[in-house]
């Protein structure tokens, strides 16, 4: 940078970031908005390039995503993504907490799909512990049910934000309204709308509340009806189709080369779904279809998400039908959390029966409780990789144990992180407005991308 000479063209009171400087490639003008006329007098060079920084704070970049676009008129000639604005060091933090506490961190990664983050993590930990086969049936059914409801809420946000970014504001209000129905169910079952930390190694934290089954069953018809309203708003809508058909094109070869999974891969015609090909939590026993499209474009991905939501509701119904009473945590008391908590009269999570047992009946039970809660359990050394089909594609958890009470290393292969690499392939050569549609069709969640 030593050969760069800054010659500010600003006048006092103007934007200090505007100005120009010489480089070996010519003069670089920095524009900050409203000051185009300052370069109107600049001589036209042979190679005039306009580089636009879009984001990270921009209403239509789907989160804190920064896009660096090189433009020729309104055509994008080069597109690159800048990420990292939401990096929170979750993987590092987990190395300093117990195996159970890790759930509380991972649920916050991709904040639209908390149950999938938890599922990938606990499945990997269970594989390391060798207790995959011992997870009670009821726990697996509850897990599947929560994941599928979560797929609906996540796809609703994909439609809502995708619609908003393309100017369809009613789609946004509808999508968020319907999502709230699902989040109400999450709150009833787990206590929290988001970031539930509900799945635990060995099962789930809580059984369903007494009226849980009924509440979920009663919500489904309303959800179906309203989902149809949202879909009707956009399917066959001339403006929506004009914005999405043949936009964000990525064929099967491109998907394979870039490691794309999820709705983007299925929009290229390949019915790859881990729930079918490598089932977990008992998915092989449920009946559902894997919707595909062959259009390879943003509209196809939109149709796939609509269809997948209906398939998910089918699975939720099957879950409700097969919910039989039983435990929701493994029998092994060295792993299972000691108490089933309920909200007490004081608003705190308590179990009077358990408190009575440890405080006045069994000193060993108290010791056991204390050791398990403060120290946690140990996991034999080794590594495991568990993958689930999240709404965005393959979410993999690579978990390494060194035999201690804490993870040695946890890494998440987040589908948003991988799929964002397709931005350049999808949007170079297209209009600026199509970049928005392309990114919206990938549906990246920056919390998951940056972790």
């Amino acid at each position: 940078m030593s050969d760069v000479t800054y010659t500010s063209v600003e006048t006092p009171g103007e934007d200090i970031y505007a100005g120009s400087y010489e480089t070996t490639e010519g003069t670089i003008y920095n524009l900050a908005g409203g000051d185009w006329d300052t370069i109107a007098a600049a001589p036209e060079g042979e190679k005039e390039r306009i580089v636009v920084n879009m984001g990270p704070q921009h209403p239509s970049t789907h989160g804190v995503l920064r896009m660096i676009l090189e433009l020729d008129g309104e055509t994008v000639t080069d597109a690159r993504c800048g990420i990292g604005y939401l990096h929170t060091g979750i993987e590092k933090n987990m190395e300093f907490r117990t195996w159970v506490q890790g759930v509380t961190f991972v649920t916050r990664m991709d904040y639209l799909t908390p149950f999938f983050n938890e599922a990938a993590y606990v499945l990997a930990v269970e594989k390391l512990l060798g207790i995959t086969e011992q997870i009670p049936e009821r726990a697996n059914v509850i897990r599947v049910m929560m994941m599928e409801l979560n797929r609906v809420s996540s796809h609703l946000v994909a439609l809502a934000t995708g619609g908003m970014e393309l100017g369809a504001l009613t789609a946004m209000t509808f999508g968020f309204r319907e999502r709230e129905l699902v989040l109400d169910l999450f709150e009833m079952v787990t206590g929290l709308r988001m970031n539930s930390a509900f799945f635990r190694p060995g099962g789930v934290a809580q059984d369903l509340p007494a009226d849980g089954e009924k509440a979920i069953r009663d919500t489904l018809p309303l959800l179906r009806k309203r989902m149809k309203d949202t879909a009707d708003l956009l399917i066959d809508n001339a403006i929506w189709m004009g914005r999405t058909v043949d936009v964000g094109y990525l064929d099967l070869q491109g998907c394979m080369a870039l490691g794309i999974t999820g709705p983007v891969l299925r929009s290229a015609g390949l019915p790859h779904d881990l729930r079918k090909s490598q089932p977990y939590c008992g998915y092989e026993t449920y009946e559902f279809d894997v919707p595909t499209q062959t259009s390879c474009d943003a509209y196809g991905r939109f149709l796939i998400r609509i269809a997948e939501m209906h398939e998910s509701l089918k699975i939720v119904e099957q879950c409700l039908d097969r919910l039989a009473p039983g435990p929701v945590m493994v029998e092994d008391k060295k792993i299972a959390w000691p108490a089933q908590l309920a909200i007490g009269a004081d608003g705190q999570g308590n179990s009077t029966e358990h408190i009575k047992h440890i405080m006045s009946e069994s000193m060993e039970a108290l010791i056991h409780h204390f050791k398990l809660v403060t120290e946690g359990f140990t996991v034999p050394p080794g590594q495991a990789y568990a993958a689930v089909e999240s709404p965005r594609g393959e979410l993999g958890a690579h978990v390494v144990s060194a035999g201690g009470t804490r993870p040695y290393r946890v890494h998440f292969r987040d589908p948003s992180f991988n799929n964002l690499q397709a931005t350049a392939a999808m949007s170079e050569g297209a209009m600026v407005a199509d970049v928005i549609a392309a990114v919206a069709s990938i549906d990246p969640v920056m919390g998951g991308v940056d972790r």
Partner: protein
Amino acid sequence: MTSDNTPVVPDGVNELDVIGVREGAFNVSGSGDTSGFGGLVSPIVMPGPSERPYGGWFDEVADEIELSLQARNLPVSSVIEKVVIDRGEITFFVRREHIVDFAKVLRDEPGLRFEMCMGVNGVHYPEDAGRELHACYPFLSITHNRRIRVEVTAPDADPHIPSIVGVYPSNDWHERETWDFFGIVFDGHPGLTRIEMPDDWAGHPQRKDYPLGGIPVEYKGATIPAPDNRRAYN
């Protein structure tokens, strides 16, 4: 480490599988451990190499890989360091100079056809002398519905591993992330820059010698140290 205590490596355990030593019962240093177990020293042993037959489709994959390597005039023993089967997963430890050839075999052979590499991530074993940095590549074959893991090691003193972005373009960002967090240099990567941390960041945060950070928190007169400075169980 207490100098009069040397960890006993159990009989039959491969030296390569020992990744560290655990001391005491509670991982406390300085004070606190009055349990009598403070002098306890035990090695941390990762699952060791497996012998044929591996069982299931693992043998098919291993056969196919060996035949393909031989067809390319690559002696199997110089490419594959060991094969570990643990918890239903197979891991090929590949010497770093051959990782690109190995990736080509995985991608191109019809009997293998691992269409997708699900990225790469690092693991730092500071006590695994000469092999401190491990890079793990999960591969997925959609055609055969199989998963394998390939692990490559590099010493801290020479943290270089050839890039496989030329074979699997999807690994572009994943290798940048592993460089960012572990300082593994992927030679031949088209633009190995930081991806999550700011460009001018110093150090590689996921390494074990990089502190977690944080400040002590005071509440009602008591002070709670940052998570990496608390008394902890190991």
